[in-house]
Structures are given as structure tokens and as C-alpha cells.
């Protein structure tokens, strides 16, 4: 099962990412027409929650 991580930046936008096969796939919540964001949004709608990253 895909594991999403989310980091909210100081300007209020968020970076969201997952890792598969040695690659990191990251996107922002700034454009809801992005296919990756739509997939993430559907995943959240199923009741899933991304891990919050607080490293910044």
C-alpha cells in the first residue's frame, strides 16, 4: 500500500510525496488538476491520512 508523507510550508502550501522503487514522487496541493494530486485526494477520501513531516 502506498504511503504518503505531507509537509506544510510556512506559506501555507504543502508538499506531498511517496516513494517507490528508488524514486520519490512529489507534488504540491497548489493545482488540483494534477493527476497525482487527484489520486492522493481519492486516497484521503477513503479515510487515509498522510504522515506529517515536520523536518522544516
Amino acid at each position, binding site marked *: 500500500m502506498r504511503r504518503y508523507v505531507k509537509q506544510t510550508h510556512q506559506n501555507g502550501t504543502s508538499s506531498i510525496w511517496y516513494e517507490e522503487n528508488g524514486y520519490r514522487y512529489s507534488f504540491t496541493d*497548489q493545482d488540483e488538476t494534477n493527476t497525482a494530486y487527484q489520486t492522493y485526494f481519492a486516497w484521503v477520501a477513503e479515510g487515509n491520512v498522510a504522515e506529517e513531516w515536520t523536518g522544516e
Partner: protein
Amino acid sequence: MQLEAGAVATPFEFEDYGTTLQKCQRYYYRHASNTVGVAIGIGAMITSTTLYVMVNFPTAMRTAPLLESSTGTNYYNFYRANAFDYTNSLTIANAGINTAYLYNNTEVSGTQGDAGVMFVDNASGYIAFSSEL
């Protein structure tokens, strides 16, 4: 070969390579890949532990894209103040259809305000942007 909708065939269109490439890059753009030393972009340490790098796209993308980047020990390198900061990964921070900021806040450590250039430092380093349907 030319595919088109409808029952009537129109004359074959000869499109130059540059135009076709531009149309493709609207959906997928490989920015830097598999070559050590290839520049990713100019950046700066915005805090002592957070690095931002700016990337310009060669053509407007369909949407704010997904960043596809390989991850591995010291795959990327930020050259600043005559010193190197190695990173294992890059993440997209802000994106529009023309530009994006990438960042790392897990491996870098340096002086806030230092500017430099980020480049690929491993043959498996790979940076691409996708706005696929």
C-alpha cells in the same frame, strides 16, 4: 503515420522536431538525468538546514507537475561557498506551469543565505516533471 478523428483524411502534416518536442514536454519533461555534473538549478540556503533550488521549464506544462526524482546516497550535490552539500533526495516545494522550487531539509547543513548551484552527482540521479493525464 498520422492519426486523426473523423471520416475524412486530411493531408499529411510535416511537423518539425522542435515543435513535436515542445508538445511532448507539456506533459513530461526530463530535466537532468544519468550524467554526473549536469546542473539542476541555482539555489540558496533559506535556513541553515533548508535548501531551495529553482527550475524553469522549457515550455508551459499542462498542470503544475509531479516531480519524479531518483533517491540514493549523495545523488545530488549543492556547490556553495567553495563547499559541497550532498543530498539523497529532492522534493517539490512550489510549482506552477512554468517554474518549480525543489527543496531538501534532511541532509543539508550550511550558512543561511549562501547561494550555489545544484547538480547531479551520481549516474543514477534523475530529475523529471510529469503532467500526464
